């Protein structure tokens, strides 16, 4: 018998990092399927290209860094990044956009900082923002949901020729609910809802997207149930966003930024709240810190959506801003340790 000198504890919980990552991937499935239901096969092609390219870039860098490729690919973190990126990108965007995004996410945002666990910014969001700024046109062409105009949903042939051959297809895309809300300055909300089919055909917020959001919410609840993350960051983000929307609803005037329900169920809100804000690597660490972190993201999302000049949605920017602030939040939110009268800031160097 080998008397190995293994130190305590000798037993470990079954949950492993690879499992955490796999569960996150599974949790995106309801949202992904809903996206496919409303927008066609584009999302699957996005996922396919992103997964392949992300894994390839990850393997390449790990090889260059002379580490074990099998061991590091086995943590599934590259695959998670691929999923998050693919879901963020508009379906039917050109293939090179996805590959460029994968390069930015894996090589620039993750591996150059030292790999898993060491990246200060969310890789998928870094890639998304780089693409959005560099290639604004393909990045803002969101397809029309099937329940608004089913005839505009692309078939497989059209999808492949659009993605891989760059074929121009007219009229498959249309303004999103957030675009419409942002550009509106003349109509009161009730009129706006009547005029725009993407709003009028929705049950609560906007056609198609409301169900996508609800499905990502379900995925998030599954992860909460599995204790993959705590409720603090996503709930505080959603509450902050809803409160902001409530404060500035302006009883539905033409100046209104949209109702709380509208903001909660359009754009990337739920996906952001449960799949981006909860990224443990780039968020604050303590529960108190995560409440602040989430709330700040919620507020920023509203500010960028409603008062910002350029972009209709603001989840990616808000998350990146707060990624910057996360270490700062950590400094001021250390918990009170047993037997100590008060919590101290982490800047305090006195023992």
């Amino acid at each position: 018998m080998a008397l190995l000198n293994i130190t305590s504890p000798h037993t470990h919980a079954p949950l492993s990092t690879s499992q955490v990552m796999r569960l996150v991937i599974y949790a995106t499935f309801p949202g992904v399927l809903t996206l496919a239901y409303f927008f066609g096969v584009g999302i699957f092609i996005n996922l396919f290209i992103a997964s392949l390219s992300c894994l390839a870039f990850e393997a390449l860098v790990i090889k260059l860094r002379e580490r074990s490729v099998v061991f590091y690919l086995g943590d599934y973190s590259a695959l998670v990044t691929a999923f998050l990126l693919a879901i963020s990108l508009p379906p039917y965007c050109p293939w090179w956009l996805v590959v460029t995004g994968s390069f930015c996410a894996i090589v620039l945002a993750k591996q150059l900082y030292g790999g898993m666990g060491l990246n200060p910014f969310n890789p998928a969001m870094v890639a998304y923002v780089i693409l959005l700024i560099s290639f604004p046109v393909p990045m803002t062409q969101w397809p029309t949901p099937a329940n608004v105009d089913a005839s505009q949903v692309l078939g497989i042939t059209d999808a492949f020729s659009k993605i891989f051959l760059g074929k121009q297809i007219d009229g498959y895309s249309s303004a999103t609910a957030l675009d419409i809300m942002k550009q509106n300055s003349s109509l009161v909300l009730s009129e706006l809802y009547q005029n725009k089919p993407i709003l009028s055909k929705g049950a609560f917020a906007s056609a198609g997207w409301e169900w996508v959001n609800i499905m990502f919410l379900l995925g998030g609840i599954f992860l909460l149930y599995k204790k993959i993350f705590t409720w603090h960051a996503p709930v505080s983000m959603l509450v902050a966003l809803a409160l902001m929307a409530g404060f500035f609803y302006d009883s539905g005037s033409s100046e209104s930024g949209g109702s709380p329900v509208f903001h909660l169920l359009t754009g990337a809100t739920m996906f952001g709240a449960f799949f981006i804000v909860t990224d443990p690597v780039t968020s604050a660490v303590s529960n108190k810190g995560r409440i602040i972190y989430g709330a700040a993201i919620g507020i920023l999302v509203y500010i960028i959506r409603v008062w910002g000049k350029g972009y209709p949605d603001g989840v990616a920017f808000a998350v990146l801003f707060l990624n910057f602030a996360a270490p700062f939040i950590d400094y001021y939110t250390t918990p009170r340790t047993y037997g100590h009268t008060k919590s101290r800031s982490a800047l305090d160097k006195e023992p």
Partner: protein
Amino acid sequence: MNSLVKTNTLIKLWELPGGIHPPENKQQSMQLPLTQLSIPAQLFIPLNQHIGAPALPIVQVGEQVLKGQVIGLAEGTFSANVHASSSGIVSSIGPGILPHPSGMKGDVIVIDTDGKDKWTALEACENYLILDRLTLIAKIRAAGIAGLGGAGFPTAVKLSTKSTQLIDTLIVNGAECEPYITADDMLMQVHADEVIAGTYLLSHILHNPQRLIIGIENNKPKAITALQIAAKKYSEKKPENKTPIEIISIPTKYPSGGAKQLIHILTGREVPNGHHSADIGAICLNVATVATAWRAVRFGEPLISRITTVVGEALSIQRNISVLLGTPVDYVLAQQGFDKTKASRVIIGGPMMGFTLPDLRAPVVKITNCILAAAKKELPIPPPAQACIRCGICAEACPVSLLPQQLFWYAQAEDTERLQSHHIFDCIECGACSYVCPSKIPLVQYYRAAKGSIRSQVAEKEKADRSRQRFEFRKERIAKEDAEKEAKREARKKAAEEAKQLLTSKKTEMHSAIAIESQPPTPPEAILVTAAIAKANQVESTPAEQRIKLERLLNTARNSLQSARAPLVPKNPVFPITAEQLVQQQSRIKQAELKVAEAERKLAGFDAEIKNTPPSP
């Protein structure tokens, strides 16, 4: 009388922050009743089985000892007696294997048992209430009792509270939150009456605290029932004990059995940083310690055996055993059908806080509550650690609200300042963070290493500070001495200057008196020469003394001539005087003769001079 047994329903409990629920694995060792292990051929009794100074051996090799006889005497207050666990002959005293993670050696008394198991005379006590508290503490101290829960803190020290510490709550710790271990569960079931009696004994020693609580995790319903029945019986038999014992079942959650954690759960009080639990009026003792203290007072029995859980898939029999202290672990395991090929490792203590035993020949000691012979499947070798994904599950699990991942970063960076500002020394090393870590990072191992290096840094700094202080003192002292020397030198120099000046002025006076007026003033060299002559004259003694000196010189020269002329005696009779030696002697004689002649000449010259000079005025 039922009022003396409080049930749980009305009692407020506080929640332990964090904590985990590892698989309990307690049923394996509770299938069979408690048993006694046979006496091994040799007992290896370490002199240090507790926290504090090792006991001093008071027996000699070859001495016959009886069961329960003191063989090691507590050294100082913070120590505990060590007793012979069985009768036999002391066969050696010296370094032996200890049950320690490092495989460290320490002084061990080895007893070759005679199998008679003959007791020494014990002093029983029917009624402890007639004894004063100090006597009772002395009895507990004499019995060598140290915390049996795993810490090994000398119980007598814990019970000797300061006058400023008013103890209002006595907590008997039967939580036993570690997986696998059931030693206390078994004890509470089998010796419930002793636990109850012991609780009242300690209550008496601690000036009857208002609350007597036995805290037990709710996964031990049999123990709870046994204690409730025992408490009821006790109160029927001795109704004079007015304070009821509260037998409180607490939610099963690791690590609620830590003393500080249990005090918090039961009373809501936290021990302030840098204080003891007695400072907040609570004393917490393990159930086994309490029962042993009772036996020590009632029957005079010292601590020579304990209940140990012997468990693990590598054994064919898993159960609780009453083991004599000093019994080698391999002996215990062999009796339970230990299969070496199955075992991944043998752990002393539980899977959360126990340590891998490097050498199975180590003995069972006072704090050995469990021997876990785990099979490879049961406790597999942990996989390589993956990167920290900062998930924060560790912070959720920490029972003292630390930030384990921050500590991990700082430990890697060896940032000792930040480690301390993040309270690394409040870490109780319960292992909850490592347990939940999805990346399987051995966090506690990092903290242990960091604590060790901080401790040694502090010690080194202290040493450096002390030597710097010494160095500074030395420098100061030398500077002072130098200054003193310098001052003396200055004073001498000044005195010499003054003397010279005085002399010079005298000489000048003399010279000017005899000098012709037309003569030019004496040049400075001349003055110096005259000063030197004057000095020489001054040093010169009287003529009589000078003559004596010269005579002495002559005598010495004559004596040496005589000894030079003496015949040579060979040092070694075998070797005759050589020609060379004779030549040397001749030259010595010649030199001596010359010296004598010179001395005679000097004396004659002196005498002649005396005659020529006129007598001094």
